[in-house]
């Protein structure tokens, strides 16, 4: 991605040359024939080439790098992931220095997109001490019903996820929770259960990268 940004300005310079190409004349829609066969579509799409592809008056040819807006391929390793010994890293370093220097000067001209959610930027507080963890576990073990995860998180001012990491509810409690969930699910109709199954399948597909 990094390399694409850097080269982008080069590409855009080209567009400024006056595009003298004749804009394709559009026949009125009524008289246009259906593009029902390959040959007709090909004939309809036969547009004059973009000026970039015409050799300029100066005669020397040039490289056009104008990739479509596409999802970056996983085979193009980001610059940061390149190992130190990789030749591409050395080649790119000089350009990086030049671009990073003007970054500071132009007060962070390329603003980073906003974080996906506030959660992303939270600071980890690490404020729970060991004793508190012990206490949390006892409370949880003693009375899982009243001391739910959210209550404990509120009490110790930490993330519920952290509470779940620290203490495990007793099997009976888990058993009861599962039964409760089963009851809820049994009340679902076919549409909802199917939707939930689909969602589960989509999750697996996503993990396999097949979504």
């Amino acid at each position, binding site marked *: *991605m*990094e390399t694409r940004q850097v080269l982008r300005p080069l590409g855009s310079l080209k567009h400024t040359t006056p595009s003298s190409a004749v804009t394709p004349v559009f026949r009125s829609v009524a008289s246009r024939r259906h593009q029902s066969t390959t040959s007709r579509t090909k004939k309809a799409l036969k547009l004059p080439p973009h000026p970039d592809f015409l050799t300029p008056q100066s005669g020397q040819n040039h490289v056009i790098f104008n990739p479509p807006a596409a*999802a*970056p391929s*996983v*085979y*193009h*390793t*980001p*610059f*940061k*992931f*390149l*190992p130190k*010994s*990789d030749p591409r890293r050395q080649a790119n370093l000089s350009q990086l220095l030049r671009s990073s220097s003007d970054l500071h000067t132009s007060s962070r001209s390329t603003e*980073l*997109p*906003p*974080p*996906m*959610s506030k959660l*992303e*930027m939270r600071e980890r507080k690490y404020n729970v001490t060991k004793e508190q963890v012990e206490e949390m576990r006892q409370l949880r073990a003693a009375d899982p019903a009243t001391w739910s995860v959210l209550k404990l998180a509120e009490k110790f001012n930490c993330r519920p996820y952290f509470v779940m990491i620290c203490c495990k509810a007793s099997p009976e409690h888990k058993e009861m929770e599962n039964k409760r969930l089963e009851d809820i699910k049994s009340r679902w109709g076919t549409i909802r259960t199917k939707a939930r199954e689909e969602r589960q399948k*989509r999750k697996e597909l*996503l*993990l*396999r*990268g*097949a*979504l």
Partner: protein
Amino acid sequence: MKRIRIGQLSRQWLATTPARSPTTTTATTTASRVSILLLLSRPAPAPTALHAQIRCQSTTTAITPEAIFDEPESKESKEPPEESASSHQANSPLPSPHPDKALRSAKLASLHARLSLSSKIPLPTLARALVDPSADAHPYFNNANLAYVGASRLQYHTSEWLVTRYPRLPMDIIFAAMKSFAGEPALHRVARSWGVEAAGAPGEEVDPGYLQFAKDKPSVMMHKWGYARAEAKELVKYKWRRGMSSRVVFDDPFGNTIPPKKTNEVEVSDARNTKELLMEDAEKNAHANFVRAVIGAIYLHCGSDTTKTFVKSHILSRQLDLSNLFEFDLPERELTRLCDRENFDPPVARLLSETGRLSRTPVYVVGIYSGRDKLSEAAGANLLVAKRAAAINALKAWYLYSPGHVGLPSDTFAEDAAPWKPAYVDIGEIIS
């Protein structure tokens, strides 16, 4: 590879006959060398019209005839294995076509030319490569030995190419990639693409150009380099977990466990075939063994660099999208552990663009940034899915790093090879 201790290995390689007969072998050096002698010194064939075929070949090994005949008459090889010293009338039909019939088979000659094999590889060797151990249990006339040699060369070239081309691949992915290039299903397709047809049933009258194997008879699974684990039985019974590093040491190049061996016989021998496990798919195994046998024959007759070009042009030229092999469990956590290990800035998911947030089908494009650098981006129906997809893409981008066309270790075998430039070796996958 096979569970063969080094000591036993040399004996197996040297032994030209079933290992159980304690014979001293003088001239032959490798099991595959037998096939050279097999071909050079084949006596003039009895006219094929003669029903009784004499399939004997003279080997210079001083094999005492008694050692041969005291062997229990195994059901498969109806005719006792002959030696030049004792060629006697075998009235039962031969299990596979007579080796000299290969010289007259047009199908075989056309297959030989289709693979553009060099003329150094004689037709009887190719005919032998087409005979599966299930069709003819006699080790001199089936392709077990050739396939074994071929398998080791093939797996060497494939693994070497994979590891140097994609150094950061996790071990499981390397096993899967090895299987998809040099495994049975792939080699089955390669054999079919060469135009090899399977014979209906093995027999003497079959055209040597067909691949002969029997579905009901045991064949020889190419147990690649690997050892049967002590706890092999329990693994199968209780489905214990096998650690990844233990697979590297014990299992075969495709990560499969070697089934517990029944007897301590040599892997590829005449008597051994009777107890071999029945294939679940004999056809695929036969086709795969044929491809390995061809590679073995090339190595035997033309040397290692011809083998390398053959493997490169026929097997490694096949295309596989490695990014389809990955299946992640918790990609976000793995990515944070990665950045932590590489002491990059912790990954932050940033929303690049979105559309249709209030519509029925919103699309969020999330990019993952480590500090100021964007690692990857992905689109999803909701924020969490988009973030997970982006994390998966980032991990793939990390694992699928490739230093490009760097030199392979086997290049240095050539005389005029350039000095070896060390390839990039990665620290390894993120194991939490």
